[in-house]
């Protein structure tokens, strides 16, 4: 599903003395099956922006289109039900929303709510459990006996059971250990690749942006500063500094070597692999012995 924002503005408590503008004139496009990362500091408008995607918040000005659905300031909630089915939202710490007695009941809750008959919903729950990498033995267990990372998988399985076309993730790896983080990011990558899901990821992890995203949007004070490929965004080091954003580790390291005179003819490397590949190319041309 493609996403288009056209001059979207949003003001909290609009038309009251407490009106607080949170988004101003935001325009961008994510192609069908795209992977967009949204970066920016706390309070930059990232969360307000993603809540437009399933119309939890409707724009105060402008409009957005998700596939064939268009949301304008006057769209009514009744018109939004189909959109909400297609846009799966995974909020921060989604495991806090688990509630059912067993894991499969929890996952089946959403589809049942949208009218699927209980047997089919439970069968679907079992499929989703496998999709997020938990084996069938978990189905009858209580979700509250699981580790943090496992609980988060169950919560995500519940979102996937709605068969969304767009998956919106708000800092999905916060609070997980490095192994849990890695597994979680691989899961989204797999869903993106195998099921063709469009992914919108809000993150502070520049490593994840460099490794997974196809497009990056940089937010600051409610405005979209820039949107581009990770290579375009991270290559402009001076600009990033003015936006007070970090480079991925590999790019920081490559920057230091650049200050000593090393050139990066294929662009600033953003990942360890990319860095090693560019170093290896220079290694042979310089005639250094290979081991």
């Amino acid at each position, binding site marked *: 599903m493609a996403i288009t924002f056209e001059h979207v503005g949003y003001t909290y408590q609009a038309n009251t003395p407490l009106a607080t503008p949170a988004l101003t004139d935001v325009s961008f496009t994510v192609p069908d099956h795209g992977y967009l990362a949204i970066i920016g*500091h*706390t*309070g930059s408008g990232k969360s307000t922006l993603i809540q437009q995607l399933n119309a939890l918040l409707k724009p105060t000005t402008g409009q957005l289109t998700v596939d064939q659905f268009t949301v304008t300031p006057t769209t009514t909630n009744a018109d939004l039900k189909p959109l909400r089915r297609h846009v799966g939202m995974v909020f921060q710490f989604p495991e806090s929303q688990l509630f059912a007695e067993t894991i499969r009941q929890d996952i089946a809750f959403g589809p049942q709510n949208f009218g699927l008959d209980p047997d089919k919903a439970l069968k679907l729950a079992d499929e989703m459990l496998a999709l997020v990498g938990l084996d069938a033995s978990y189905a009858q267990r209580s979700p509250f006996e699981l*580790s*943090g*990372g496992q609980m988060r998988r169950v919560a995500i399985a519940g979102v996937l059971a709605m068969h969304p076309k767009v998956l919106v993730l708000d800092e999905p790896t*916060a*609070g*997980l*250990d*490095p*192994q*849990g983080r*890695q597994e979680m990011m691989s899961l989204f990558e797999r869903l993106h690749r195998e099921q063709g899901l469009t992914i919108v990821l809000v993150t*502070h*992890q*520049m490593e994840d942006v460099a490794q997974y995203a196809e497009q990056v949007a940089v937010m600051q004070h409610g405005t979209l500063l820039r949107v581009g490929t990770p290579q375009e965004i991270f290559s402009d080091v001076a600009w990033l500094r003015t936006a*007070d954003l*970090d480079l991925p*580790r*590999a790019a920081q*390291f490559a920057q*230091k*070597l650049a200050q*000593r005179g*090393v050139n990066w003819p294929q662009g600033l490397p953003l990942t*360890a*692999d990319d*860095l*090693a*590949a560019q*170093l*290896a190319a*220079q*290694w042979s041309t*310089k*005639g*250094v*012995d*290979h*081991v």
Partner: protein
Amino acid sequence: MENIIEVHQLSYQYPDASERPALNQISFDVRAGEWLAIVGHNGSGKSTLAKAIDGLLPFTEGEVIVGGVALTADTVWQVRHQIGMIFQNPDNQFVGATVEDDVAFGLENRQVPRDQMIKQVAEALQRVGMADFAQRAPSSLSGGQKQRVALAGIVAVAPKILILDEATSMLDPQGRQAMLALVRELHETQHLTVISITHDIDEAASANRILVVDDGRLVQEDSPAAIFAQGERLIELGLDVPFTAKLATALRQRGITPPSGYQTTAEMEEWLWQSLSNTSATPTKPTHP
């Protein structure tokens, strides 16, 4: 250096868990003024261990001695007065309606006279760079600011020991770095003993020594450099793989062999620069100027 904490053969089993014990015969010492990191994957027992030291768990087997005081039901307050603890979620540890009330809470508990309390609160907030926020509601602060206020609450009562229980894991990278810099400064200037329970490689790198806990047992104890030299295996220990180790792996896959063992980023940078600029050097033996 004297031992400020001694743990002997500590075991604990959660009452509702029929399975394995959460802590299994753990013994170690912490020297006064030391920075000790405790690492392990989620569920390994490292947070349980921190709680046991602070008298938050009624362990039945083993012994914990803090500042020469053996921890029992009768001495728990003598032990806790020596320890300041910061938890993962800053929202779970606020009691005051304003930032300064919150920082004053520990002093009120210790019945510090009002005049002195006002002075100590102001100093503590100054110390952590939050003096301008004294009158603000804690809920209006960012995660990083909240953790700094929590740290001010500890600075105000000046304990000998600071325990950080994944205290930076919910902060953004800049908030995390600011918090770590502050803890480092307190560690150096106040001779504060720091125990940090963490998954963060930078936080673990600040330590003098790292303990690895797995399945309730103490499985390894070594310097950060020795622990980090394990490369890809670190992910099983609950840590991330250091960037230099990832780069070394990627280089080896392309036929380039960096020096063995853990390299800091500065060492790796130097070695790569030397190897690239000195065409006659063999990559495995960098020439030093």
